[in-house]
């Protein structure tokens, strides 16, 4: 993993721990059905994000962070398939006029239906996106939950003006005129720190630098004041200076709008700068979850501990080689039985870790870990 220098998180934000959930993911499973077999990219992820909360999802490359994030809005490409679980989100408001703009070609329905939730476990006022009408999904995409992707170079259409791409989102979800949408696009570009937005609104993506394109992506994601912004490695493709600027931007926008953020990163430094809570993923599972400061101070899972040990500490001499997590991520078709981290774990116990997946253990503060070592504590 790649790291930026971390320090103890300071100036912690005060979070309302009773705020309602804007996202409640339960036991989501996503598979890739390939010719040689099935890859379980996401194997039962459960996590929640409260209004205004920033959750960091961390883990090595290939552990399923992106697939998990894309599963939320059903953006996983073939041959990926969501095979189980629920994605609960607050019922989106559906404006009949804009709903027309989002209607499918062969949809004969006059007005979209507000889904009737029959599941007794259903959280109050929420719908399960995986079980609902495509119209509900489209009403959530870009409006209540929006996404920023890793590749600013290829995530924008090369043949459409950036202003039009931003305005399109607004027109899809709000009953405004084209001119008003354009004015808002200019305003959004200004907000994400793009100079001369009146001119840049007519620029094509190839006329902008990588950092500016990522700003455009963020402007597009913010266009309809989402409740939740999912940012999938938004700074990974950028140079170090630009990375810092984009993170600063996300932070100030969050504080301005009060939106929740799910930031996906393989960089613990990024998580430390931004997040309130953290979910550590390993091979399609969340192996540890909790308050960011708590997890950083008292990591429980051996994987989290190894990750943290590989991060440079403030004051540590620059030249020292960092210890990466021992071993390699196993091949998707050759995952160990029981705990999938078993063959890289220094604490693995034969007869215990290899027989069954470790249980999910939760302490009184909500700190969760998936490891047999903590079974005794209960």
């Amino acid at each position, binding site marked *: 993993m790649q790291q930026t220098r971390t320090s103890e998180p300071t100036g912690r934000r005060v979070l309302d721990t009773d705020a309602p959930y804007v996202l409640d993911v339960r036991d989501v499973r996503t598979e890739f059905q390939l010719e040689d077999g099935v890859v379980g990219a996401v194997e039962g992820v459960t996590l929640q994000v409260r209004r205004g909360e920033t959750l960091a999802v961390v883990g090595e490359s290939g552990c399923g962070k992106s697939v998990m994030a*894309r599963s939320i809005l059903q*953006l996983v490409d073939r041959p990926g398939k969501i095979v189980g679980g629920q994605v609960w989100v607050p019922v989106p408001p559906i404006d009949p006029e804009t709903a027309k703009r989002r209607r499918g070609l062969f949809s004969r329905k006059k007005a979209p239906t507000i889904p009737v939730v029959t599941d007794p476990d259903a959280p109050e006022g929420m719908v399960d996106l995986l079980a609902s009408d495509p119209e509900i999904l489209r009403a959530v*995409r*870009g409006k209540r939950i929006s996404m920023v*992707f890793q590749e600013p170079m290829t995530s924008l*259409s090369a043949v459409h003006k950036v202003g039009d791409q931003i305005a399109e*989102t607004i027109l899809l979800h709000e009953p405004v005129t084209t001119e008003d949408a354009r004015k808002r696009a200019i305003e959004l570009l200004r907000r994400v720190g793009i100079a001369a937005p009146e001119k840049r609104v007519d620029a094509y993506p190839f006329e902008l630098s990588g950092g500016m394109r990522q700003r455009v992506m963020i402007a597009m994601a913010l266009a309809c004041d989402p409740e939740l912004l999912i940012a999938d490695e938004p700074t990974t493709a950028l140079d170090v200076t630009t990375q810092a600027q984009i993170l600063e931007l996300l932070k100030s926008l969050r504080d301005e709008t009060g939106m929740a953020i799910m930031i996906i990163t393989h960089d613990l430094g990024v998580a430390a700068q931004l997040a309130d809570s953290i979910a550590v993923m390993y091979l399609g599972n969340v192996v540890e979850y909790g308050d960011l400061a708590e997890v950083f101070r008292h990591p429980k899972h051996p994987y989290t501990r190894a990750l943290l040990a590989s991060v440079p500490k403030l004051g540590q001499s620059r030249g020292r080689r960092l210890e990466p997590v021992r071993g390699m991520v196993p091949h998707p078709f050759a995952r160990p039985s029981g705990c999938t981290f078993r063959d890289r774990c220094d604490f693995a116990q034969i007869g215990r870790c290899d027989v069954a997946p470790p249980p999910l253990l939760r302490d009184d503060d909500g700190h969760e870990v998936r490891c047999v070592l903590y079974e005794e504590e209960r």
Partner: protein
Amino acid sequence: MGRYMLRRVGLMLVTLLAISFVTFWIIQLPPGDYVSTLVAQAEARGEVISPERMAAMRARYGLDDSFLVQYWNWISNIIFRGDFGDSFAWNRPVSTLIWDRVGLSFFLSVSTLLMVWAISFPIGIYSAVKQYSPGDYVATFFGFVGMAIPEFMLALVFMWIGVKYFGQSAGGLFSPEYVDAAWNIGKLMDLFSHLWLPVLIIGISGTAGLIRITRANLLDELYKPYVITARAKGLPEWKLLLKYPVRMSLSPFFSTVGWLLPGLISGETIISIVLSLPTTGPLLYGATLSQDMYLVGSFILILSALTVVGTLLSDLALAWWDPRIRRSYQGS
């Protein structure tokens, strides 16, 4: 953009000049000249042309002038009077021979092209979006069969079916009573009733090929990140497909669309001969066999000019379609 176009048009004119020189050189290529051909024809009929008359004719046609002077006479007649010279074989001015056929060829080819586009784009898009679905397999099967069967065979099969089961000849573009008639509504309807068969036969392999190309180009675009971005906005699927990946996948198509221009005129020679269509193909073929050089030369000139113009149109179409290319021209 303006300066770029000026440069391109200038370059085009130079190319056309070079082509016209080569064409004229080809016209002059066969041994003998116009007068000696006439003499040979006269002798074949048993007539004798006196040497004085031959000399007079040579002077009249400027056959003893230098190459450049003759070239100038030829090209200036074409440019200023639309006079392409005379056809030996038909004993008529070339211009009276070709334009009718050029018109019909153009009409036939444009009809075919429109059919090909109207069928292949939707099927190609469907095939890519529903890759490996039963529909895609059917389209793929049709694509390979369509590309593999030679058109002349299709033409023969259709003619055979026409004669055997419907007792009518499938050839030609007009019924006998309309062939020499002036244009009127009846003749037009007659043309349409004959047109569908050649259009179908000529179009089949093009349709099959374009389905494959559309499918492959779209598959390249369908899973790019910008498509996911568009989906994440809440766009309905069909709108998003047409606006983003389909649009991108048409760029290679636009870069070659101008090359169709010469094909529109030259048409499908083999099919036209088999189906005895009065298009340019058979005329050019016959002219080449009989060394009817002014006719051949006129075709070469017209087709080359169309190729050059088509290339320019292609580039302009692509610039219009793709802002990246447009902006790079504006920079240069």
